């Protein structure tokens, strides 16, 4: 389940940013929100894949990852990975209207409307992230810094792109600083989750009069 979500967001992400967008298509006013969206989505992917890694199912050889994953550790407790993704999604929706934001067709709206909505999403989702995770950049310097990656580098810290030839150390330039979290105190779901069945993320809200 989590991997599906991650793949879905990776897809959205690539659709949004990796495709070369003509200048005029994205108005200047929307640029800050594009960055924010990028941050939110990459965070979600980080978290979702972390959750997946914690659960550690054996078939986890992630097709999106260029490096082979380390041998999975034996699971210590029976975790409901789908449940954790569900909790995170419901928190992001409840506090930051995350699904409302993503599931609606945005084409018809004017930029000020998108801007106002994205403030709601930014305020709520970042509060959730800040409360349950402790997120900071992996690379403490700036983008554009020159780094050298040698053999002793912590596996998984760098993703190398471009001309990766020969033996380490590799010299390169930081394109993105990466994100890490030093805390993973996500709430736990106590209701049963059926990975195959319909699972309510947020309930129907009815005002009783």
């Amino acid at each position, binding site marked *: 389940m989590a991997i599906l979500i991650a793949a879905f967001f990776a897809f959205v992400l690539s659709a949004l940013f990796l495709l070369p967008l003509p200048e005029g298509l994205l108005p200047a006013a929307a640029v800050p929100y594009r960055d924010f969206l990028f941050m939110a989505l990459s965070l979600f992917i980080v978290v979702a894949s972390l959750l997946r890694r914690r659960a550690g199912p054996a078939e986890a050889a992630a097709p999106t990852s260029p490096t082979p994953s380390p041998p999975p550790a034996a699971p210590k407790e029976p975790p409901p990975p789908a449940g954790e993704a569900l909790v995170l999604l*419901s928190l992001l929706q*409840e506090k930051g*209207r995350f699904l409302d934001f993503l599931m*609606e067709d945005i084409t018809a709206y004017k930029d000020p*409307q998108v801007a106002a*909505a994205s*403030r709601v*999403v930014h305020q709520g989702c970042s509060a959730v992230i800040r*409360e349950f995770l402790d997120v900071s950049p992996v690379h403490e310097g700036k983008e554009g810094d020159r780094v050298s990656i040698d053999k002793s580098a912590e596996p998984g810290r760098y993703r190398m792109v471009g001309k990766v030839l020969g033996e380490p150390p590799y010299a390169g330039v930081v394109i993105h600083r990466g994100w890490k979290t030093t805390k993973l105190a996500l709430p736990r779901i*106590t209701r049963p989750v059926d990975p195959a069945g319909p699972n309510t993320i947020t309930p129907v809200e009815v005002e009783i009069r």
Partner: protein
Amino acid sequence: MTKRFSLGIDLGTSNSSLSICEVDGGHAEGIDITQILSPGVVGEKPLLPSALYIPAPGECAPGSLDLPWDPAGAEGPVVGAYAREQGALVPDRLVASAKSWLCNPHIDRYAPILPWKSELAEGRLSPFEASRRYLEHMRRACEQHLAARDAGAGLDDCQVVLTVPASFDEVARTLTHEAAAAAGLGSVTLLEEPQAAFYAWIAHSEAGRGAGHWTEQVAAGDLILVVDVGGGTADFSLIAVAEAPDGLSKALELHRIAVGEHILLGGDNMDLALAYALQGKLEAEGHEIDAWQFLALVHAARMAKEKLLGDESVDEVPIAVPSRGASLFAKTIATTLGREEAVAQLLEGYFPLTRADELPAPRKSVGLQEYGLDYATEPALSKHLARFLRRALENVKSDAQLSALIGPRFDAERDAILKPTAVLFNGGVFEAGIFRRRVIDLLGAWLGAEAGLKELESAGLDIAVSRGAAYYGAVQASGKGIRIRAGTSRSYYLGMESPAPAVPGYVPPVKGICIVPQGTEEGTELELAGREFGLVTGEAVEFRFFASEIRAGDRVGDVVPNAAKSLEELSSLTITLPPVSGSAEPVVPVSLHPVVTELGTLELWMQHTKSERRWKLEFNLRARD
């Protein structure tokens, strides 16, 4: 039994917190409190919102509100984050501010009256029961923490300190103490919240994290004002620094010399004030704000307040309020909150630069008015502070010992207020430096140009109270470290009708006889000598009971001529004596023995003058009109 841990519990009006400290030289640290975040979701938060929600039958799936320590399928009210969020939208089922109800003398605090004014037919709770449930939740969270920390540790290994507002009277303190016992916490020690914040400052400085050791930051003769403005209440205290009486060791003593009245005014009022202003703005633009959007507006106002007050480079914060439906883009309404607006609303509304002789308007008597929470009608905290310092001066003047303690720090002839030399802030409101600076400026204007005023560095405004309580518990358990000399914050009086010839139309005033002087230390037994009561056995006898926080000079047996006028009346006291064996007389001669227990509670005992038998007077909480 020696205690290994000290547990500090801050049972707040809007949020509660929990800290633990190892008795042998540990530092107090917070315990994250496990709570329901939504049905079927459990998580930890550093604070437990003091809110309780009574779910409708069948509202949540069975078991979805169970906490890890609950037996499966437990039913009943839910406490904490989910209770606050869900309850905000279903006010008939939300219990809030239970602590303020607990100290409301106009209601029966054991009666199921909460949620107040709710149309809920069943399942309502008493202020006592709601408080008990918050405390029980924290006891469970603590037990869970102890079990994870050290398999063998339990609550028996803990010295438990529970904080109460300094403004709580004896009745509210007794009720809190009882609620803690009923929550399974045993016999807890009570500590005043501003004192707890002060202990947190001491602990902070001793750990080398402040501006030097506390004995270097203050000196004998200093008078420290503790200003504690939480979410729902404001609480003031004054602590005097004196030289230890031996005069050789250069040791310092701390005396808590004055406490304020209970003021229902705090940070939540500020958020509401901003939200109302924003609502007015949006409605003027033709938007309608429903109840749900108003809550979102309050939330947004709080965030905007923190941003504007915390970062002076920000001039304006955009506010976006979504509608409840899924259409985020079409229905989100937007406005802005500007710095000037916020500052005018909050700084000039709550901390105006008033003169020291501007006091809050006198309270209306509650006589025929409908009972509810006695919210402060005067929003200017500056005026409440002026009133506190004025009354503190009155208190000091009334007592020669206190006057000697403060010594040259005040001029009884010229001063109108007691003048502090240092300030310690507490409560989330003071996260904003602008409010701290304003209070300093305000006091500076009152004190005169020549007086310097120090600001003591707080150890964390939101959590200091429970941290300080845990530190105090460790001091108490180990016997090492400084203790603030405080004793009872008020003096207490028994009402006595004076015998007078019947004159039509004239009701003789009730005299108040002092039974416990202010500052009576814990572990003291007093005796009201020379006054014997003749009590008829088998009949309930009722005594009127009064208190004052500004009559430090009264000693046991002193008489206040008109109690109803110069003292504050609390719940009455009752006693029903059983027949005394071996005595044929229905009237039993007794003398009164007030006891201030080691735990900080007050007990009044009637002692049979002819035997060792004694009976305890109880507060009459069930009926009062």
